[in-house]
């Protein structure tokens, strides 16, 4: 039981996020009105996605070190769940954009680059599907994964900060933190991203167990 405390913590934190996230009194930041509450759902998705992609790339590196197929399962599962959280982040962001920017899919650099980042990881899955040999698949996809991660950083972290974007926290528009005078946003935000990240890791461990069962003949 002692091993599962963090799952209970994830549930509690997410319950708090959902209840407090919709009820807490938030500062009105320019024309964002109540859509600021998206901060508790949209941003944690990306933090969770980055966590999972980092887990994935670390396991790919470990795989290339020892050629242990178990590490490949860890890497591919983490990438899979990371894509799920990336998609949710994209959807929540687009929903927010619909009411604040006036368009669901805009040509904002932040939105474009995240869509591209997701495509890079979808390509990773396609690459995995295209190779039938288990060892070869693990080796080739680990190499692509390291490559993809190296491209992900400039794509989602550096370029959107260099060009003008309407997204809060970019070169020309300030983030929400400076307007959060009462600290209510951050009071919910920190538990929110911890909760969502824990949820992501939880789903990831479940997927790893499922994949291991699928390949149990190989691992004995």
């Amino acid at each position: 039981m002692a091993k599962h405390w963090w799952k209970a913590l994830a549930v509690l934190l997410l319950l708090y996020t959902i209840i407090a996230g919709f009820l807490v009194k938030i500062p009105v930041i320019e024309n964002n009105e109540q859509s600021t509450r998206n901060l508790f759902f949209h941003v944690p998705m990306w933090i969770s996605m980055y966590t999972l992609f980092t887990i994935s790339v670390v396991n790919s590196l470990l795989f290339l070190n020892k050629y242990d197929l178990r590490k490949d399962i860890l890497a591919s599962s983490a990438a899979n769940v990371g894509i799920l959280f990336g998609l949710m982040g994209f959807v929540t962001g687009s929903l927010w954009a619909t009411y604040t920017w006036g368009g669901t899919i805009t040509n904002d650099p932040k939105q474009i680059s995240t869509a591209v980042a997701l495509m890079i990881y979808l390509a990773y899955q396609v690459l995995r599907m295209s190779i039938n040999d288990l060892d070869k698949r693990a080796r080739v996809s680990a190499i692509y994964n390291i490559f993809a991660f190296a491209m992900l950083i400039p794509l989602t972290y550096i370029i959107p900060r260099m060009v003008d974007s309407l997204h809060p926290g970019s070169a020309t528009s300030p983030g929400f933190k400076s307007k959060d005078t009462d600290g209510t946003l951050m009071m919910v935000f920190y538990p929110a991203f911890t909760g969502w990240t824990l949820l992501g890791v939880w789903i990831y461990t479940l997927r790893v167990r499922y994949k291991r069962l699928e390949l149990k003949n190989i691992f004995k």
Partner: protein
Amino acid sequence: MSGLHQTLTLIKKDVLLELRQQYAFYGILLYIISTVFVINMMMGQPEEQIWNALFWVVQLFVSVNAIAKSFMQESRGRLLYFYSLVHPRNFIAAKLLYNILLMSVMSIITLVSCMVFLGNPVTKFWYFIGVVMLGGISLSLLFTMLAAIAAQANQNAALMAIMGFPIIMPLLMLLASVARTAFVTVYQPGLSNMFILLGGMDVLIVGLAMILFPFLWKD
């Protein structure tokens, strides 16, 4: 043989192959000219922004086609032969350098044919040449590594496009915005940063290729 010598020999071998069986070179040449000609037939002489966009799209497809074959022309047996002779790092270095050479030539050809068929809206010519060369080098480096990966996945050319297009997009976005200055005088505050980022990405790709290719080759 020293590493440098091995690399140079491999480049020489690739150049020699190219010179002897010229179908590949003329194939790509025809590819460039017909693509640009199709654009010309469809829209005549486009404005500078569209010209810029079309130029980079043509560059993208040319580099995919030119570089995809750099690993596909090698048969399995011949790859095994190279594997027993040279260190994989020298092999990938040779491929990278050869593809840079090839893409530089192709970039110039693309540029000339675009200027002939689509008009010439470029005002800062030498600046644009520099950006085109930088772009050609970046594209060739990235696609060489992707071609190496695709070669492992059953020599699948479609796979290279699937893997490559999303990954190449940050590079193309940077290149297109860097190139904009060559057409009209616009104020771009982060221009030098973009060049640094492009150079940084190239260094990163070369570094990753050098580190990762030996793993890829261990079959």
